[in-house]
Each structure stands twice: as C-alpha cells, then as structure tokens.
C-alpha cells in the first residue's frame, strides 16, 4: 500500500494562478463576470471546506475503512485498478450529485456550490462546509464494498475534484465534438449552474459527461440564450455564515412548523417542495416554462 498525499493540496497554487489569469481575461472582456465580494465569499467557502476536512476527514476515512472490512473482493494496487476506481468513483459522484439536487437534505450542503450568481474559476472553489453533516460520503461506500481500498478511492476523489476546477469558466466556449461527447466541459457545466428553466436539473457529471447521456439528464447548451447563474431564489447577501447554513436553517424552520406527517418530507423531498404546494420547485418552474413556450407537457 503506497503512501498517498492529498492531490488537492498540490493543485491549490495552480488554482490561484489560473484564477488570476481569468481575472485578467475578465478585465478585458467582461468585468461583470467577477465580483470582488463574491470572489472573496467563494474562496472563503473553499478554505473553510478544507479546514472542516481536517476535522471531519479522519472520521469519514475511518468509516470508509470500517466498511472496507466487508468487501466482496480485494482489488490489488495495479494500474487497471486505478483506472477502474477513477471511472467508478466518477459514477458514484454522478449519483451523489444527482441526489444532491433532488433531495433537500443533501441539497442543503451542495447548495453552497451553486449560490454564487457568477460562474468563474473562483466559483469552482466554492465548496460546502457541511458535507459531513449531510453524510455525502455514503455515496462512495459501494466502492469499498466492491473492494477498492479507501486510500485509492480518496485519491481518485481528489483527482476528480481537481478535474472539476478548470471548467468553471465562461472564457472557453466549446471543444471539438469528440471531447464534448465524452468529457465534462465548460459548456456542459455552465448548463448545470444555470437557473434558466430549460437547464434546471441537468448535467450532474463530474469528469465524464457520458453518465448524463446514459441516465437521461443531459441538456446541451443553447447558444442564443444568455445563461443566468445561481439558484432559483438568489441568496441576495454576501454574509458568509448565512450563505453556508441558509438551507439547513430553512429545513429546521420547515420541520418545526410542519404538521407531523409532513416533517420528514421537508427533509427528503426535492428542494422547494411544500406540503401545500405554495412554493416553486424545479419541476413547477419547468412546467411553467413549457407552457409559456408552447412545448408539450412532459
């Protein structure tokens, strides 16, 4: 078993450098693509995420090791195992991410990544502080059960995260067809961060966009429609702590106020769900859009 560093640690200087490069691009082309307060907030999210990781990481890794005891096979540290691990970890990421958008409990943590109204490289570092609370790591456990060593999985997860950095940009329009067909790209992930009704709940991929194509969640970017970024009800504040916890606060309030038989639903139904139907969900917004556009009902 090799000694493995955390690859993200080594990537951070490159992240900062690329953000600076993109800022120079923005100054020339579109200064409104960056907002200093928003950038400060997003980068603070990133830093806080790694601080939380120092504390929660140990416990999460211990749980992964514990589950590893019950593995069906023992997969060796060979080159093909690395490839298989990386691909399967990306598949696990897809299902984590898709669930994170459809189940409010996981959304309360993942919303941190989406709550900026900007889409630039600093947005990529906007990472949650409460993934440990949401127990997001459970989506990786099947890999341990199959027999991948937790260290290998953790390392692949780090590489996955690094790959996801660079495509948070509007500076790159599109890549050659074959690349856009297989890989997640700026174009595909812009769609994922968009609040335009046509784009809601799509392109959950981490590295390989093929998962979205396979499981029916792929939506291609349309060239003539400007993208609006963020969440359906924009935060409207740069207050960091409120930005970190707002959806958890929302869950707590709703569960407290709801009748008993609806309490659980406020935690596990889709974001925006309410027992009296008084709020918008991505589905109601999409339905309204289809109606206005004269599209057939889905």
């Amino acid at each position, binding site marked *: 078993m090799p000694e493995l560093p955390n690859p993200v640690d080594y990537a951070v200087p490159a992240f900062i450098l690329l953000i600076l490069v993109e800022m120079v691009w923005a100054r020339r082309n579109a*200064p409104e693509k960056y907002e200093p*307060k928003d*950038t*400060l907030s997003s*980068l603070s999210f*990133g830093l806080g995420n790694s*601080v939380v990781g120092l504390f929660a990481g140990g416990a999460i890794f211990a749980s992964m090791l514990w589950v590893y005891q019950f593995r069906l096979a023992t997969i060796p540290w060979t080159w093909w195992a690395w490839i298989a691990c990386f691909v399967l970890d990306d598949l696990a990421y897809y299902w984590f991410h898709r669930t994170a958008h459809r189940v409010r409990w996981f959304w309360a943590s993942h919303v941190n990544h989406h709550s900026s109204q*900007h889409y630039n490289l600093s947005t990529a570092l906007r990472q949650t502080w409460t993934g440990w609370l949401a127990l997001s790591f459970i989506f990786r456990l099947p890999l341990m059960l199959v027999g991948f060593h937790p260290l290998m999985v953790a390392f692949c997860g780090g590489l996955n995260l690094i790959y996801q950095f660079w495509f948070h940009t509007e500076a790159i329009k599109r890549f050659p067809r074959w690349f856009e067909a297989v890989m997640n790209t700026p174009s595909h992930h812009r769609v994922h961060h968009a609040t335009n009704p046509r784009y809601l709940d799509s392109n959950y991929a981490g590295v390989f966009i093929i998962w979205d194509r396979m499981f029916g969640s792929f939506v291609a970017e349309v060239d003539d429609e400007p993208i609006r970024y963020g969440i359906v009800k*924009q935060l*409207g504040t740069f207050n960091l702590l409120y930005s970190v916890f707002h959806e958890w606060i929302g869950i707590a309030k709703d569960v407290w106020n709801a009748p008993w038989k609806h309490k659980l639903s406020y935690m596990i139904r889709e974001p925006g769900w309410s027992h009296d139907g008084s709020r918008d969900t991505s589905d109601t917004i999409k339905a309204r859009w289809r109606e206005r556009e004269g599209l057939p009902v889905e």
Partner: protein
Amino acid sequence: MIWIDLAKLGASLIAIIGVAWLAGRMGLGGDLRIRDADHAKVLANEAIYGFEATEVALDRAGVGALLKDAQGNQMLLRRHGAAWVGRLLDPAMETRLDQGFLTISTGEPGAEKVTLNLGEAAQIWAAGMRRLVRA
C-alpha cells in the same frame, strides 16, 4: 503536523484576501444599472421566472425597481454586487417613506435595507404596499 496545517491555512487566507483585493483594484464587478422600465421587466422575469410586470417604478440611479404584475403581486428588484436579486413583497416587510425615498427591509438575515429614489412615484407605491398589507 498541526504547524504545517496552520501555516497552510495562514498562507491560503492571505492568498484569498489578496485575490479579492486585486479583483477590486482591477475594477472587476463593474457598475450595473437598470436602463429603463423595459430592462427592469426583463430582469424581473429573470429573477422570478414568469413574473410579467405591468407597472414599474424605477430608482433614479437605476440600482433598483419596484414592479407589479396583473395579479397584484409586487416585486422588489435590487442590485446585489454585479448581479440582480428579486423578491416578492409581502405584508411582513417593513417600509418607510421619506419624501421621494422609499426604504424597504425584506427582513431576511444578512440582507441590507434598500432605499429607492422613486421621486413622485414613491408615495403611490408606498400606498400600494400598505394595500398589500391589508389584502
């Protein structure tokens, strides 16, 4: 070990503040303004999908607007950094009228009060908001 982590933390913190400071120095963010009533309507529809404004009161400096739709819903549209945020007005929100200036507090944590310079329209919209309260 803990010292290495603390050093990394300190360096990251300095880098973050440096990057944000530089973004400000480079003039990033720009100065967004609402051009006219039609622009406000477009922005309002983007902020809350399907909101069809029929009436608009524009802030003199173009940093915010109040809008009303045919169903009587009212929206506060305001600038937030280099972006726009819309909120439907509800009776619980606090308002204050001072000559042509209408101040609205949505009561959300972290959100500041918004003061719109609406000129003569301020009185009418303030009255409209009071009616919203009674409805």
